[in-house]
């Protein structure tokens, strides 16, 4: 194999699918072959059956929608506040000097450790779920956006100055457009993390959502339902990632080369 040499599109899809097939085959072999007890790991057929009953009988669709709503809510909140602050920090060094030490510190506080505190403050309602996602995403967004904006090529900024661009114009005409594709990439990444936080938030003190269903199924030792829930999360993540990538390609055709 030659390093960095691209594969043909068809071969790429085939290889990607092949891994899923192998994975399922190994899982099926381990469970149907009786190597793993059904108490610990359901076989694929049971998983699908349980999944179907979840959807058809137990209204799992509603849980899925609730979870998606929470993820999007927390994520949009974190992005709406985090992106502007990150831009301000990246562009203006005094603002960065003011916020950066605290944000760097806050970034390492695990969102899950805040759950008990947030339950005290905000109860177990929707506000608490959104806050968990917000705490987990906001500081990451701020720091990564600040770094991206701050890394804009100096000589590009200088070139813009010689074209008559003013200080404020530099932010609008150079810093923002040149870092826009990377900012979109950062948001895509953080949206992925938001999915982890929401499930953690729903595992504790929640009466709805995918995480809550998983918790209930554990009490019933229903590993088929648990695995189905996890797979649903994976597929939603895959779909949102795909949409995000497609959107970025459309918005920033110039950033590919």
């Amino acid at each position, binding site marked *: 194999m030659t390093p960095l040499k691209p594969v043909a599109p068809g071969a790429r899809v085939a290889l990607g699918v092949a891994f899923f097939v192998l994975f399922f085959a190994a899982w099926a072999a381990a469970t149907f072959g009786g190597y793993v007890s059904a108490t610990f790991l359901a076989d694929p057929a049971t998983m699908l059956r349980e999944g179907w009953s979840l959807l058809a009988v137990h209204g799992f669709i509603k849980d899925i929608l609730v979870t998606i709503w929470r993820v999007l809510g927390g994520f949009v909140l974190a992005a709406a506040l985090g992106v502007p602050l990150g831009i301000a920090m990246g562009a203006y060094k005094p603002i960065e000097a003011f916020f950066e030490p605290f944000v760097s510190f806050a970034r390492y506080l695990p969102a899950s450790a805040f759950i008990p505190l947030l339950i005290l403050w905000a109860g177990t309602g929707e506000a608490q779920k959104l806050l968990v996602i917000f705490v987990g995403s906001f500081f990451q967004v701020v720091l990564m956006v600040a770094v991206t904006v701050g890394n804009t090529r100096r*000589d*590009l900024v200088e070139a813009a*100055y010689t074209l008559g661009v003013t200080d404020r114009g530099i932010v609008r005409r150079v810093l923002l457009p040149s870092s*826009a594709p990377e900012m979109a990439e950062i948001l895509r990444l953080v949206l992925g993390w938001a999915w982890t936080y929401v499930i953690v938030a729903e595992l504790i003190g929640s009466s709805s959502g995918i995480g809550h269903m998983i918790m209930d199924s554990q009490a019933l030792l229903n590993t088929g339902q648990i695995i189905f829930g996890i797979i649903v999360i994976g597929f939603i993540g895959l779909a949102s990632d795909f949409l995000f990538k497609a959107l970025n390609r459309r918005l*920033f*055709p110039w950033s590919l*080369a």
Partner: protein
Amino acid sequence: MSAEPFIHLAGVRKVYRRGKTEHAAISDATFDVMAGELVSLVGPSGCGKSTLLKLLAGLHAHDGGEVRIGSGAHSFDPARDVGMVFQAPLLLKWRRILENVLLPAEILGLPMAAARERARALLALVGLSGSEDKYPYELSGGMQQRAAIARSLVHDPKLVLMDEPFGALDALTREKMNLELLRIWKEAGKTIIFVTHGISEAVFLGTRVVVFTAGPARMADNFQIDLPYPRTLDLKTHERFGEYTRRIYKLLGLE
């Protein structure tokens, strides 16, 4: 010449600082440029040529000496009277070529219909007709550099600073661009400072050549090129052309 110079540099010094260490990029630059001159600036790599252009463009402050641009007869507004071509094209990659060239006009609030026409004409002049709607990544390095040249001229600046603008071009295109540059300069009556590594290019273009020696830039020479305009390529066989180039080679220690 007794008239007031357009650019007056006296004992200009520039130091780059990083922490406590200082690095002198220019130690003493002293020369005048009259309005309408085309001054070639030559010197070895790293001697401070780009730095001097950035001082003139107002991008960096100087640390000593005097920099004065503009005279009684020729006013100068640093916000609209400078056009600069950098060593790298530095196009905004999210704008199409025409939009890149139009940027200075857009910022200065010039009438857009006229500017658009001018931008197209300039792109044609640098051989980029048909590339107006492409993104920079779709152009070769030399094509991008030519677009940057068009961009530096679109707002009709009085002073044009060019930092090795033809460095990325093949020899033939380069000769062609040299002739075009002379034509634009003659027609528009601009003052041009032209940094180059090409010694014969410096002599071929310039009304005057300023020679810097290895950094920190110290002026080694500053002399008039006494060759007639319009200059054509057979000028390079002129006896005095050879004398001038030899003079520069000697200053740079190549003889």
